[in-house]
């Protein structure tokens, strides 16, 4: 795997609590992405970053925020977790954006109870 580490790999949390997922890369790629994967929906883009402190919304950004203070780290925060946010979350990186291949982390399985 192309130097991408997601943490934690599994998490169970209670409704209403804040949750932060971390994506760490060692590849010095400029672009970083957070997706969620749910049955029947494939991968849906939550937020992405095109540089340090440069982020933008994806298709399903409501209830999520992100931060990127360093090239290597991209954090996804669920401000107040809901059961609808139970999902598998994937981080991806790419060198020059959507015109090159993306490399994916192993995923974080989040369960909100």
């Amino acid at each position, binding site marked *: 795997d192309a130097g991408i580490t997601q943490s934690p790999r599994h998490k169970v949390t209670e409704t209403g609590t804040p949750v932060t997922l971390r994506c760490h890369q060692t590849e010095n790629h400029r672009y970083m992405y957070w997706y969620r994967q749910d049955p*029947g929906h494939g991968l*849906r883009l939550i937020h*992405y970053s095109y540089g340090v402190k440069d982020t933008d919304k994806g298709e399903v950004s409501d209830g999520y925020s992100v931060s990127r203070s360093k090239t290597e780290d991209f954090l996804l925060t669920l401000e107040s977790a809901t059961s609808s946010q139970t999902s598998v979350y994937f981080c991806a990186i790419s060198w020059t954006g*959507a*015109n090159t*291949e*993306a490399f*994916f982390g192993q995923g974080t399985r989040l369960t909100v109870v």
Partner: protein
Amino acid sequence: SQQGEEDPQALSIQEGENATMNCSYKTSINNLQWYRQNSGRGLVHLILIRSNEREKHSGRLRVTLDTSKKSSSLLITASRAADTASYFCATDASDTGGFKTIFGAGTRLFVKA
């Protein structure tokens, strides 16, 4: 709504047969990519085809792109049990500045030994 949609949703074939998966998308693109996901794992990039290309090969993979019909196909020849996975198309949606990669819902391929 998602940019790319794969068809069929699921496909079951015998080892040695060819597998064809189709992808349709909605807006103009600069490129289209295909990814594979083994169960419980992150996505792995297979091939990228640019909007000015019509066909591309990589080993047993053949990808075609028809921009007039906004569609692409992925052909896996002489399939093997190890090809069992989900396959996703992804596009860049040229009106997003080339930053976002948007995925379809995927085709689940099962190759019987």
